[in-house]
């Protein structure tokens, strides 16, 4: 019973804050609401008896990625610009198609997922079980992801950095 109450409380928190992310005009408030939403999701993992996944959720998303997001938002120092409504037909089409898509999604989730399937017992989600699966069954996708991330880092360096000679010149000026 208490699990039931906790689930719906934190589910409500997650959904409400997720809506604030989309609807609020201030990007910093949006980023913080996303943190709150992630935190509520972590509670869901605890309810599923997977504290390891919950801790990872908070460390990776709330603790690292969202701090970077906030860092970038604050560096850009975004200002409020009241945008005049442009292209009313496109806006109308966008809103209606989104609404239909949302309704359809909820319908199918309710019909096929919720209230019909039961989880087949407690699943293994401690550090040992995840480690063994990651380095045995899923070692190839795991390595592929790391190569993808490496490529992303190299790409970011290439796009943000200037030519090597130029950077060396800057280094001399600063005195490194």
């Amino acid at each position: 019973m208490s699990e039931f109450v906790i689930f719906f409380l934190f589910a409500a928190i997650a959904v409400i804050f997720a809506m604030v992310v989309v609807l609020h005009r201030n990007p910093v408030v949006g980023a913080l609401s996303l943190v709150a939403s992630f935190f509520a999701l972590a509670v869901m993992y605890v309810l599923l008896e997977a504290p390891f996944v919950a801790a990872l959720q908070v460390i990776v998303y709330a603790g690292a990625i969202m701090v970077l997001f906030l860092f970038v938002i604050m560096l850009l120092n975004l200002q409020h610009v009241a945008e005049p409504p442009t292209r009313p037909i496109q806006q109308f089409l966008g809103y209606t198609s989104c609404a239909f898509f949302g309704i359809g999604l909820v319908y199918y989730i309710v019909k096929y997922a919720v209230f019909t399937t039961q989880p087949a017992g407690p699943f293994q989600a401690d550090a040992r079980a995840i480690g063994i699966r990651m380095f045995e069954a899923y070692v190839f996708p795991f390595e592929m992801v790391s190569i993808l991330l490496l490529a992303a880092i190299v790409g970011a360096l290439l796009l943000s950095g200037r030519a090597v000679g130029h950077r060396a010149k800057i280094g001399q000026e600063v005195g490194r």
Partner: protein
Amino acid sequence: MAFDTTDVLLSILKIAIVLGLWLNVTPIMVWIERRGSALIQDRPGPNRVGPLGLLQSFADALKFIMKEDIIPAQAHKWLYTLAPTFGLFPALTTIAVVPWGRAFMIPEMHIAGRTLFEGGRWFNPIVADVSAGILVIFALASLGVYGITIAGWSSANKYSMFGAIRASAQMISYELSLTLAAVSVLLVAGSLRLTDVVAQQTNYYYVLFDVVKIPAWNVLSPAMWISFIVFVVSAFAETNRLPFDFAEAEAELVAGYHTEYSSMKFALFFMAEYMAMATMAAVVTTLYLGGWDVPYYNEPATFLGFLVSFLAFLTKVGLLMFVFVWVRWTIPRLKYDILMRIGWKFFLPLAILNIVIVAAFIAAGWI
């Protein structure tokens, strides 16, 4: 597992003990900081309020309460008000997963015709003994940066903003070294649970042809020395203490992220800083200094054993916190780019190297 009233009451007792200790850390540490800095700088320090100036913290607290609470006109009112609590929340909750004494058996008691603790009951001095203990600490510690960042941003002040940006960049960098340094300890313990980490350290190593026995504290094992240094220095950076207090940096940024704060809101930042420091000291104690273990003494599973181990834990944490104060008044503030360079180019590779060393030690059967 079913809970009965006794379990609930014991849990509330544990929470009360930890919370009481942690709330009292700030006044005590403020006194130690002020008298300690005076000692190091060869001056008397505050000595007018009470014997040895011991009541100075109460005078400070009274002053904080009496001050006017100002919210700047340009500030984001909601976030400006919430920011101090963002800082305080991780500082107060992290300690829940740290064990602070030897578990002991509460014997059956008969008081006023009622039987208490029927058949005896184990008292495990830790608020929440979760299987992902150390990860919970890192998860909550990583949220500590939000207090500083949001305070700096919502104040609508350029200096606060600089403090906030520095804090977020610094904490992201040092969290990596901190976590990777702790991985070495977890490899030896073979568990993420902090009670297991401490239990492993209550054993002994036999050195010099198995004649001399030394406690198996991680800090005493040569494989851990790099990891210990990296962890402690990163802990200084993570708690924003000198020589790494760039979020505050009085000399450059007025008071950094809390420039605009006054009254009890400012006091909350103060409390959060000292509680985060106490938590870090407790984590270092647990991971490297044997937690509540007293060397060469086998704590019995009774109340006496618990008391001795609890005092040992408090002593270690207290000594470490004095080191925090000592370092603050001895080493000057670094330059910001040096801090970032140390973090990424020096500590991160060292922490990874130490994991390899520890793995080799384990493979060779030396640990």
